[in-house]
């Protein structure tokens, strides 16, 4: 699986012993993040089917609102593929707490997705 780098955003991903870790770093502020993120994130789904995934946003410095739709679509595809996924964010950061806590409401709809601040 390949890492992602575009502009100020980096996404690192690794998988070992059926545990995958995806870490978002930097800033996501491009005009149309979906155009690059959607194909990249889609490309990971098949390979992640045999693993449990943790997506860490804790060290992401900033993301614009346009970054949210590709994240939501990725979560939807992970859920459809029944990939058990934990999303973590920095609960002490107000913007992360606001942005990612809102995703916790999806837990009732996306049964394989858990969102947790730490």
């Amino acid at each position: 699986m390949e890492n992602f780098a575009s502009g100020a955003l980096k996404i690192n991903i690794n998988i070992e012993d059926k545990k995958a870790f995806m870490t978002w770093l930097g800033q996501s502020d491009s005009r149309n993040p979906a155009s690059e993120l959607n194909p990249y994130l889609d490309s990971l789904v098949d390979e992640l089917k045999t693993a449990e995934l943790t997506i860490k946003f804790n060290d992401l410095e900033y993301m614009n609102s346009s970054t949210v739709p590709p994240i939501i679509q990725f979560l939807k595809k992970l859920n459809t593929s029944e990939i058990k996924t934990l999303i973590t964010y920095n609960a002490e950061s107000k913007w992360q707490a606001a942005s990612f806590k809102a995703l916790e409401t999806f837990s009732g709809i996306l049964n394989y997705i858990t969102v947790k601040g730490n």
Partner: protein
Amino acid sequence: MGDNITFNYNIDLTWSIVKLIRDKVSSLVESQSEELAYACKMTSSELVENAVKYGCSIDNKKGIEFFFSLGDNEAQIKVSNGVINKTDFENVKAHINEINSSVNPQDLYIKRLNTLLEKPELSQSQLGLYRIAFEGEFLLEYSYNENLNILTVTATKKF
């Protein structure tokens, strides 16, 4: 009593200006609380993004107008741009009116996320306005000068 900070700038309709504005606002609010500083930075960035993506230059002037002010207990951000088509303007109006008629911006934001979950084909999420209200805790207003074709969106936060 603290200093009042104001910053007024005509900016180009290029994407690179979004980060420049975000960085400029960050420098203006660096002595403020982390929470207020972030709210100002995010709101400025989201409003300028909308203007660059959906607006056009104001006639007879260069680009769009950005205004930022920070007083003892209020921050205000205004972005003015030309309107390309009525549909985009009506969308802004509808979203701001919906936000202003809601007692709970968080519920609206979550409702918007659910809409995006159900309808991935939506080309304009307009999530930025909901984020400004919920995450930034800014109040939003709009005004439209029909003669000059200028839309102004104003975000105000009392603290």
